[in-house]
């Protein structure tokens, strides 16, 4: 029954976004044979969409910046639930990772002195984001891809992994199918790295590409790895709201970094009305001071529009709820106003934000150099993911590593913009390095043929059901799930609706068992959607379950029944989830590691 091909690699990497590619380059450099698998074509991963930039304390624009400030900013942004060691490593290693990209051919925007230019972003004390206009992700992904393909790795494009294999407590490989032909592949590997990105597609309104179905989260969970922080989902404050077909599409924070003003229907800069105490010292008192900051006045403080994403998103929801929203249920984001301040504003906007200019021109018929945009929150990023060791990125399962958005710990309760791209590089590299040495030490072990058989059956089930009368359409079920999460596990949460959500997710999981698809195995998106459902349902359940458990409001997690941030128990615990022996989802609350004194001091100094 050998109707599949078999491949052997020291390191198998699932996902070819920034994290997967960076890991692949590192593992290859360490001498490992690397298999790089991705559901889409190489160079198309979600990372390509990143716009604003990658955060690294290069200190090219403001010499007061340093890894210490970056570290403190990251911890404050994450409301101190971050894994401090990851935040420290990230801040320390990011600059080198960015310079490395330049050595591989990336061409960042430049300062007057001919160095890598850095821009302002929410929650960062100094201009810190290395960028290329508003297409930084493309630059990063293409650089890694073009460098990576010459490092001797084997790539398997448009191949979807549906299951991990284990032997005892160690991971041994994975099962997947080619999208093009439906052909099955077995990967036997010494170590496996999950770099599958996020879960945005679990929600109706999202900035994420179709790939964000949480596959890695769910593959890891099924294999026994612990997930943490799943209640923290970042709703980016500025997604497009009109027309309906582009609802959720991202409007980069770079617009606000360049001076874009958030206004309600009364023309008021409402972000100045409510500045959280944690940020009072760092935030401008008036729009005037905010503008001075944008133009480089070092004495000025950040505009209120650049407060952290969780806060800005909630403020927008408040304005809309209280009747001061824009015609299509958002608020106004105005960059055109800067023409009052600078000559050639039109040209400046087109040069700094070319993709945004085109996006609005082509998809909404709006000229952002002349009119304000309409924006509202959109599901953007998941802080939660697979719990990893901060040094090696190994999960709680032997030989299973995770990096990038699928990993967790760095961002705590809220991620700062720009900290993801740098996360991919820093921890992608580490995952590649440690996975290679793990594989080298432990070798490759066999895969149980029984497990292979089970994986095959599971993949074929939806096709077998196609003539049953009870069968359900996979797309319809996916839409139902997206509506459910949007409504009940969204920006504002409360106990009864979260409980309802949990029950309804169970119901959908039951229904998913009778999903059937028409057609055959050859490039059949209906079949692919049916197989993704399992992952979406697992992450949906994980989010709802964690959100119900955390009885407070912190960072991206807001409960109207527990509106305050706790200083006791919840300030010191992360919520973990793992698959129990009976197959149920178990909640594990773990105290966060104590921050060492020298780092405490750094946080203190940054006020």
């Amino acid at each position, binding site marked *: 029954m050998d109707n599949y091909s078999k491949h052997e690699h020291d390191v198998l990497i699932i996902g070819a976004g920034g994290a997967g590619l960076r890991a692949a380059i590192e593992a290859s450099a360490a001498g490992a044979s690397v298999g790089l698998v991705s559901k*889409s*074509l*190489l*160079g*198309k991963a*979600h990372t*390509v*969409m990143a716009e604003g930039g990658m955060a690294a304390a290069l200190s090219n624009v403001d010499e007061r910046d340093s890894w210490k400030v970056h570290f403190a900013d990251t911890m404050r942004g994450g409301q101190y639930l971050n894994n401090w060691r990851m935040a420290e490593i990230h801040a320390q290693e990011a600059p*080198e990772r960015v*310079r*490395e990209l330049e*050595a591989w*051919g990336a*061409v960042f*925007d*430049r300062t007057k*002195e*001919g*160095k*890598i230019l850095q821009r302002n972003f929410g929650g960062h004390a100094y201009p810190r984001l290395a960028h*290329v*206009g508003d*297409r930084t992700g*493309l630059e990063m992904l*293409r650089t890694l891809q*073009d*460098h990576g*393909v*010459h490092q001797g790795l084997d790539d398997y*494009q448009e191949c979807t992994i549906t299951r991990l294999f284990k032997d005892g407590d160690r991971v041994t490989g994975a099962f997947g199918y080619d999208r*093009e032909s439906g052909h099955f592949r077995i990967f036997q590997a010494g170590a496996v790295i999950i770099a599958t990105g996020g879960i945005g597609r679990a929600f109706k309104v999202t900035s994420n*590409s*179709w*790939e964000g179905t949480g596959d890695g989260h769910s593959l890891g969970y099924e294999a026994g790895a612990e997930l943490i922080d799943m209640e923290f989902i970042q709703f980016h404050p500025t997604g497009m709201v*009109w*027309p*309906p*077909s*582009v609802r959720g*599409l991202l409007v980069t924070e770079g617009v606000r970094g360049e001076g874009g003003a958030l206004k309600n229907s009364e023309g008021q800069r409402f972000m100045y009305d409510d500045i959280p105490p944690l940020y009072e010292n760092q935030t401008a008192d008036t729009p005037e001071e905010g503008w001075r900051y944008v133009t480089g006045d070092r004495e000025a403080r950040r505009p209120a529009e650049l407060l952290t994403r969780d806060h800005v998103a909630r403020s927008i929801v408040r304005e809309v709820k209280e009747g001061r929203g824009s015609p299509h249920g958002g608020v106004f984001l105005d960059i055109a106003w800067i023409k009052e301040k600078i000559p050639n504003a039109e040209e400046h906007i087109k040069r700094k934000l070319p*993709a945004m200019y*085109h*996006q609005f021109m*082509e*998809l*909404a018929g709006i000229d952002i150099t002349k009119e304000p945009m309409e924006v509202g929150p959109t599901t953007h990023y998941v802080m939660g993911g697979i719990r990893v060791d901060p040094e090696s990125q190994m999960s709680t399962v032997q030989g299973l590593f995770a990096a990038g958005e699928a990993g967790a710990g760095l961002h705590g309760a809220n991620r700062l913009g720009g900290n993801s791209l740098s996360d991919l590089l820093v921890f992608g590299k580490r995952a590649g390095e440690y996975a290679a040495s793990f594989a080298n030490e432990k070798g490759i072990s066999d895969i149980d043929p029984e497990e292979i058989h089970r994986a095959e059956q599971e993949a074929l089930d939806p096709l077998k059901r196609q003539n049953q009368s009870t069968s359900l*359409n*996979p*797309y319809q079920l996916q*839409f139902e799930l997206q509506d459910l999460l949007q409504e009940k596990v969204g920006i504002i949460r409360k106990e009864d609706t979260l409980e309802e959500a949990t029950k309804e997710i169970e119901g959908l999981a039951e229904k998913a068992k009778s999903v059937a*698809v*028409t*057609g*055959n195995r*050859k*490039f*059949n*998106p*209906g*079949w692919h959607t049916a197989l993704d459902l399992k992952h979406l349902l697992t992450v949906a359940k994980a989010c709802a379950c964690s959100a119900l458990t955390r009885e407070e409001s912190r960072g991206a997690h807001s409960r109207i029944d527990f509106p305050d941030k706790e200083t006791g128990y919840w300030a010191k615990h992360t919520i973990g989830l793992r698959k129990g022996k009976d197959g149920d989802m178990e909640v594990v609350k773990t105290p966060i590691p104590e921050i060492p004194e020298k780092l405490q001091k750094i946080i203190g100094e940054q006020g």
Partner: protein
Amino acid sequence: MTTATFNIWRGDAAGGEFTEYTTELSEGMVVLDAMHQVQAEQAQDLAIRWNCKAGKCGSCSAEVNGMPKLMCMTRMSDLPTDEPITIQPLKAFPLIKDLVTDVSWNYKVKKKIAPFKPRQPDFEDGSWEMHQSDVDRVQEFRKCIECYLCQDVCHVLRDHHMHEEFIGPRFLVYSAALEMHPLDTEDRREDLRETQGVGLCNITKCCTKVCPEGITITDNAIIPLKERVVDDAYDPLTKLVQLVTKKKG
């Protein structure tokens, strides 16, 4: 309620035909939305490639009423709906199924182009001094999202099928980005001339017209490359001077 009717190519390498589908329209809809609607409601197994639905990944290329387009950036309101809209796969590549083609040739071609090879760093931390004016042109080329619409429309590939002799506009842009990169020290001129077919381009500019990123493929990338290659081949003195000094002008 307004609707639109599509003639969508259904089939694979073995054969196929246009099939008619009618679907509802809503405000702001793009062609990709309509395809997804057809998929969800009438043809579950309709093969489409897409990722971002934001014009950023270059996956959703197809021919809409005969024009190579990104489906996610083509608004329904810009198309006439009084007659069926034809949607078919790119023509320059082998068909896999429905709207999906085999673009692997592009990856093979790219891998053969000599990679970036930087000069020694200017500073101890491994970085270089480069000014915005030095990188403007290269940044234009690096906007490419690899949608291969330019490859699809270029007659050398589309009609003459010279995939062995010609790398196509996309990879001439890529080569130009490397050749004009201020830090690069590699010399790709012989390859361009001998095996990559820069001479086969006869400057029809069709590629430039379809590029969704607005890259001035012909004028800014191909013509300067042609000039370099010619200088290199016919002017031994320039070649000598370039060898002893820095190679690029």
